[in-house]
């Protein structure tokens, strides 16, 4: 399997002038052809910066961004433009992104018009074929964003991103505002695209949002990866205390689990309030003194997992569920 998108020790800062804060710190991550990488994190965790980094919409301050093996970290915008049809990104808020004056058909067609040397007839046929796959009706194709519900609009948004048949597709919280039904449909579509060899990075604010299609899951907290591994391994045996808390916060339709969960105090701190040591220590139910001084780096655990927690190395990071 070839690596499509890769971040190597990428650091990103956001915000103006003096109020600039670290959004991502030394992130190592990659996504292969035919693979879905799910990135999970809450507000302020850096997941949007991470999504944007993969397609080089932000220029990292440190580290390197690779696409299909080539370094695009410092590639000028003019040359990046040629790659924009092969690595695409879908943002969460379709209503804010899509031009309200254009019809759904024109919106989906636009990237072809900009990037592909094909005639109008061919473009039209491509949009029709894609619309069928997205289950957008011919009538819906003639509507404008203001005339469509958020669920349908997100399909248009995704349609724009895949009409050029990219090698790398990045989606930033694509299902957050959708109904369960529409979200399930979108996840099914991603599974199809993966089967066609596309590399996909998808973010979500909880594990349940990405878990159905993600082959691998990375959990972000305060701009750092706290755990990364195969989805099945993480679901079966989450090792980082934060991953465990996220999993237990997922409100399962399972009455047997009623009330049994790990409760975190407080809210994630803003990046500027980050304390030294492990970023999660102030909220961690099992933090020790050493966690507040030494910052753990992601360590390889077993053959296929990285976890940034001092207690993982000793096998004492699992938290019993309380009522």
């Amino acid at each position, binding site marked *: 399997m070839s690596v499509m998108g890769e971040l190597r020790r990428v650091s990103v800062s956001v915000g103006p002038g003096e109020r600039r804060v670290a959004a991502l710190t030394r992130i190592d991550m990659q996504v292969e052809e035919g693979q879905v990488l799910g990135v999970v994190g*809450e*507000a302020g965790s850096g997941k949007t910066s991470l999504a944007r980094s993969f397609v080089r919409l932000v220029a990292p301050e440190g580290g390197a961004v690779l696409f299909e093996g080539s370094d695009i970290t410092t590639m000028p915008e003019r040359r990046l433009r040629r790659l924009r049809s092969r690595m695409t990104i879908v943002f969460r808020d379709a209503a804010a992104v899509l031009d309200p004056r254009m019809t759904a058909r024109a919106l989906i067609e636009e990237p072809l018009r900009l990037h592909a040397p094909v005639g109008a007839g061919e473009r039209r046929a491509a949009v029709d074929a894609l619309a069928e796959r997205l289950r957008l009706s011919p009538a819906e194709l003639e509507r404008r964003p203001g005339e469509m*519900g*958020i*669920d349908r609009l997100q399909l248009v948004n995704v349609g724009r991103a895949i009409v050029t048949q990219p090698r790398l597709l990045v989606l930033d919280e694509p299902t957050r505002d959708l*109904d*369960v*039904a*529409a979200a*399930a*449909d979108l*996840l*099914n579509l991603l*599974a199809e695209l993966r089967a066609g060899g596309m590399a996909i990075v998808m973010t979500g*604010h*909880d594990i*349940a*949002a990405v*878990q*159905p*299609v993600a082959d691998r899951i990375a959990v972000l907290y305060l701009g750092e990866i706290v755990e990364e591994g195969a989805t099945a391994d993480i*679901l079966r045996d989450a090792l980082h205390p934060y991953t465990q*808390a*996220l999993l237990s*916060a*997922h*409100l*399962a*339709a*399972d*009455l047997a*689990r*009623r*009330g049994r*969960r790990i*409760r*975190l105090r407080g*809210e*994630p701190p803003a990046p500027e309030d980050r304390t030294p040591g492990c970023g999660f220590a102030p909220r961690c139910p099992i933090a020790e003194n050493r966690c507040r001084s030494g910052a753990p780096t992601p360590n390889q655990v077993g053959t296929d997992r990285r976890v940034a927690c001092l207690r993982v190395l000793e096998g004492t990071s699992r938290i019993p569920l309380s009522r």
Partner: protein
Amino acid sequence: MLLDVQDLRVERVADGAPALAGVSFRVVKGRILGLVGEHGAGKSLTASAILGLLRPAARVVGGRALFEGQDLLRMSDADLTRVRGARIGFVVQSGHATLDPSTRVGAQLIRAMSIHRPIVKAEAAWRAETIMSSMGIPEPRQRVREWPHELTPGTVQRVVVALALINEPQLLIADEPTAGLDITAQMQILDLLHVELRRRRIGGVIITRDLGVVAQYCDDVAVMFAGQVVEQGPVAQVFARPAHPFTRTLIGIMPDRLATGGGRAYGGPLPENGEGCPYRPRCDQATERCAMVPPLVGAGVHAARCHFARIGAA
């Protein structure tokens, strides 16, 4: 019976189209009902109708909403104003939209009290601090002096819950109280609501799209589809033996049941207005019988609106 909604019918003013086609459910004192359904099923509209907040877009055209025996739908505006915010608390989706941006948090709590009864300023200020603290807000004495924009989203929602509870209502209606919050903050707010409703023996209606919220926090559930309640009953019974095909689908697509990847397609069109079961275009068990209005099967605590419902059957 704390709240007994019977055959509530609402239509859109613009074109007379029915928006709620006979919604019925009950809230028992001290119990929490989850009102669950997809976007557009009429959940928020139901709450607005009960609270007299429909105008100008829609109007009630039939039914009753008995709150402690009094019909809220036929109450004068003046009487309704005395009930709303005092005996019925309301938590809306967007906390920031609830709070007045130009008033300090404490002053808003005091104002909410003063609307419904004469207050002594010092006592009201003390009560504002006390309720902030019982909402799990640290340093309430400082926080009452803060402005809404200075608060984190989680704290905003705690203040909104405090506003809804400060007049000690008998019923609390929470419309997607954690929409837009992060998952750990969601859990904190739902835990808080749950504890406070139990402690104060308040009846609750939690409106949600997430069946997980129902499973974890509610005693009873009413499942809405296309402007109707299609199934209602105690959570344990409905989850163990869902009688309506829509409820079965909802439970079946819960994310944790998709663990193997993929998942099955779901969703689809609503039928044109007219006779018969509204779910039939999406139902894989539909037969020609479904073109007729489905009966309410079960009539006891667990009931479903389906020709083929068998309550209690495995």
